[in-house]
């Protein structure tokens, strides 16, 4: 039986979404009040969804692990948010945005979903502007745009280097308004620990109150996960340190298929590892590549200071290899090119694991002030962390784990394979294929939350209007709670010697070395072996102090690490299965003579969706074949 029915509407690409909206079921206002929806996560996806569902009249319960919804990691997005407004009159359109995403994703995303994401993009900008989001403006008072990695039009809206924060505060303000009205109820400082499934449908969650340690049951007619990505699998990444895979993993164990887990974007421009205690890698917005030029010395192991290396002894390797796009090639291409140079011995810095990003020419041409106006806060941030001044000396950068294209499998309505369980934002897999283009995640997360889920969830809930309030006394809640408690007890009983964080760090290293920017069969198999060994050690030598009935950050960390082991193995399994290179997934066995990624459309033009069986059985692969009716599948070239 094929579990995967993507429910893509018929008809021409440009009409699918409007036709679908017009034909799906609606819930009348009187019934909405009686229907409860749980939204977990308050990033652009979750906060926008919760606010919009609240406005529609549903009864919404909202959860996040931070102390307030305004701190979801969307807050950290710097560069911008795309929309097909064509305000610059440079030939942009919904179709072009769609096409760029399909191509950028290396033809591994669903046409219909991507087109819809492009289609609703314009509404997002209007919505945020109306909410008072201070996007950058031109002197005439109209909105400004900039161009962003991987495309040739200027369609990126931005608010200095804080676009994510400003958009999130927009969504948060809408959510706050609904909380004030009583349609949304906020439960912050909660960790989702399980999804409760009753008669095959998602009917609630089990959460831990992080202040009191209490295990809580919450029931609802539908559950929406907006819990973000799992890039922290590498320990060091551009994500917030508490970002985690637990919600998605728990949903997966409860029957939601997990799609393309190994599609993880490594961002090319991050501050490199500077010391052994480092706990995260800070992103330097890719907008810097608009003016900065990337280079390494032409001579191997050249130890001179960058400014002492004359022009003709520098290798601007991106400009050399990709003359058409130069420094603006997509992220996966830029990351791999940096790795290639460093592996070949041309890297700079003590570790040899970094390359230069140089603003000398841009400052010469445009003046320091112009550069400061564009990137001032980023330069400041760099200096605070790295201790050198980028106006005077090139930045050092290196790729870092950043974004997960993979995630819970969803159909066109954004529903997972568990009826009533939805996944939106970075938590799902749907719109970016094997690689995400810059500024298109904020667009997709906000689009999912504001303009997709409010419609599509109605199609499911229309059949639930006779379902009474979900009782949390049901045996399924009881069983879920018991399981959660026994897991916590088990973790606490180990009473070994090592804190959870140290396991996370070691797991991250295994993942980076074996399932990072480049993968091969031997390495992946070795990776799985090492993960298994580390997992065993975790379950025999973990140390948690304190008790479970209080604020206990060691319990929080340990639970997350326990879940990371599962997803880490699944990433390796997926990467092993996909013997082609595509987008961010680079299998060393599948490359051209020039070292470019070699896709294999004949055998791998599908979404790999994995089904969890049990702890001792390998996960089962389901394939959703991808068809391209509206674009011609080509070799992705940025030469």
């Amino acid at each position: 039986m094929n579990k995967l029915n993507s429910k893509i509407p018929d008809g021409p690409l440009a009409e699918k979404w409007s036709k679908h909206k017009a034909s799906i079921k609606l819930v009348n206002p009187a019934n909405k009040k009686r229907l409860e929806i749980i939204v977990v996560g308050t990033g652009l996806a979750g906060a926008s969804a919760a606010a919009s569902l609240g406005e529609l009249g549903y009864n919404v319960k909202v959860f996040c692990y931070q102390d307030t919804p305004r701190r979801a990691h969307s807050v950290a997005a710097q560069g911008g948010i795309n929309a097909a407004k064509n305000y610059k009159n440079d030939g942009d359109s919904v179709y072009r945005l769609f096409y760029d995403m399909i191509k950028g994703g290396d033809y591994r995303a669903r046409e219909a979903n991507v087109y819809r994401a492009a289609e609703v993009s314009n509404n997002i900008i209007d919505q945020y502007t109306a909410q008072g989001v201070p996007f950058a403006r031109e002197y005439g008072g109209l909105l400004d745009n900039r161009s962003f990695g991987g495309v040739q039009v200027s369609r990126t809206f931005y608010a200095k280097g804080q676009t994510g924060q400003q958009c999130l505060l927009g969504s948060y303000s809408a959510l706050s308004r609904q909380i004030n009205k009583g349609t949304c109820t906020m439960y912050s400082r909660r960790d989702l620990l399980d999804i409760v499934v009753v008669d095959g449908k998602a009917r609630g969650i089990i959460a831990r109150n992080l202040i009191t340690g209490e295990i809580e049951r919450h029931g609802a007619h539908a559950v929406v996960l907006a819990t973000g990505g799992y890039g922290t699998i590498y320990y060091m990444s551009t994500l917030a340190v508490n970002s985690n895979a637990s919600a998605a993993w728990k949903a997966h164990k409860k029957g939601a298929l997990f799609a393309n887990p190994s599609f993880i974007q490594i961002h090319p421009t991050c501050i490199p590892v500077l010391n052994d205690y480092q706990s995260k890698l800070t992103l330097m917005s890719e907008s810097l590549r608009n003016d900065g030029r990337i280079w390494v010395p032409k001579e191997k192991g050249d130890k001179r200071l960058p400014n002492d290396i004359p022009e003709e002894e520098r290798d601007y390797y991106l400009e050399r290899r990709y003359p058409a796009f130069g420094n603006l090639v997509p992220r996966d291409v830029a990351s791999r090119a940096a790795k290639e140079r460093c592996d070949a011995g041309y890297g700079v810095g003590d570790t040899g694991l970094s390359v230069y990003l140089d603003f000398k020419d841009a400052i010469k041409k445009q003046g320091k002030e112009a550069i400061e106006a564009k990137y001032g806060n980023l330069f400041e941030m760099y200096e605070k962390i790295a201790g050198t001044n980028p106006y005077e000396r090139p930045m050092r950068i290196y790729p870092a784990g950043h974004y997960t294209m993979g995630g819970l499998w969803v159909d066109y309505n954004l529903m997972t394979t568990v009826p009533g369980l939805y996944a939106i934002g970075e938590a799902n897999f749907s719109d970016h294929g094997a690689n995400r283009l810059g500024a298109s995640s904020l667009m997709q997360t906000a689009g999912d939350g504001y303009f997709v889920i409010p419609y599509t969830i109605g199609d499911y809930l229309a059949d639930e209007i006779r379902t009474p309030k979900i009782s949390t006394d049901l045996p399924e809640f009881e069983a879920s709670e018991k399981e959660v408690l026994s897991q916590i007890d088990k973790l606490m009983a180990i009473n070994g010697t090592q804190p959870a964080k140290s396991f996370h760090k070691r797991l991250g290293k295994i993942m980076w070395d074996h399932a990072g920017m480049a993968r091969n069969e031997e390495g992946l198999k070795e990776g799985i072996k090492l993960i298994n060994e580390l997992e065993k050690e975790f379950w025999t030598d973990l140390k948690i102090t304190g008790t479970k009935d209080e604020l206990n950050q060691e319990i929080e960390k340990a639970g997350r690490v326990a879940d990371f082991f599962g997803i880490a193995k699944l990433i390796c399994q997926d990467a092993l299965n996909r013997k082609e290179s595509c987008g961010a997934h680079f299998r060393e066995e599948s490359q051209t003579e020039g070292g470019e990624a070699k896709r294999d459309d004949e055998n791998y033009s599908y979404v790999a969706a994995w089904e969890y069986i049990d702890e001792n059985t390998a996960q089962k692969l389901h394939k959703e074949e991808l068809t391209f009716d509206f674009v011609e599948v080509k070799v992705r070239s940025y030469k």
Partner: protein
Amino acid sequence: MNITLKIWRQKNAKAKGQFVEYPLSDVSPEMSFLEMLDALNNKLVKEGTDPVAFDNDCREGICGMCSLYINGRAHGQETRTTTCELHMRVFKDGETISIEPWRSKAFPVVKDLIVDRNAFDKIIQAGGFISVNTGSASDSNSIPVSKAKADDAFDSASCIGCGACVATCKNSSAMLFVSAKVSQLANFPQGQVEAAKRAKNMVAKMDELGFGNCTNTGACEVECPKGISIKNIAKLNREYLSAKLSD
């Protein structure tokens, strides 16, 4: 580097807290302040002692979650820096560093260095928004806004809701936080419709939640990691006055 940490430990909201001293050796100047605390906690857990609880998430100065009062100053001695952006290179070998939670009646201590800042959410819920439902917005460029006003709005909007202003203020006033939101939204034509009501409701909520009055000492501005200016407070007062006048 070797340092001594003097840290506020408090088991829970009801317990009485106290300072506890911890020596810490092998601190690298390259570490961030929070990485230094990670190292301490790593050591404490291995010894079987409860680690120090502190709030943090993004570790890059944007989420507003970190909130430590270091050597008597909110977010430490560096200006325009959050606790997570602070690096050990600004401290001296052999130094004793005191670390406390935010102190304010409106931000009760939850455990150790963690406080409850829910009051900020409640203030925003009282009016820190423009009432616009999803889907009802018109084309963005149909309402031009001068670049100067948009830039001004951006500066106010860059508040990260950390609460350092409250922790620093001798009156525990939340005026800088409230005024930043009020003036951000008042800069836009669509935000002006509710401007007076917004100011009134947010200020009333602030008073109700136990924040003190603003006596214009300006301490908040000095410690704000995002450089939010006290000019915002003057703007708030104008909006507030006009609301009162029209009552």
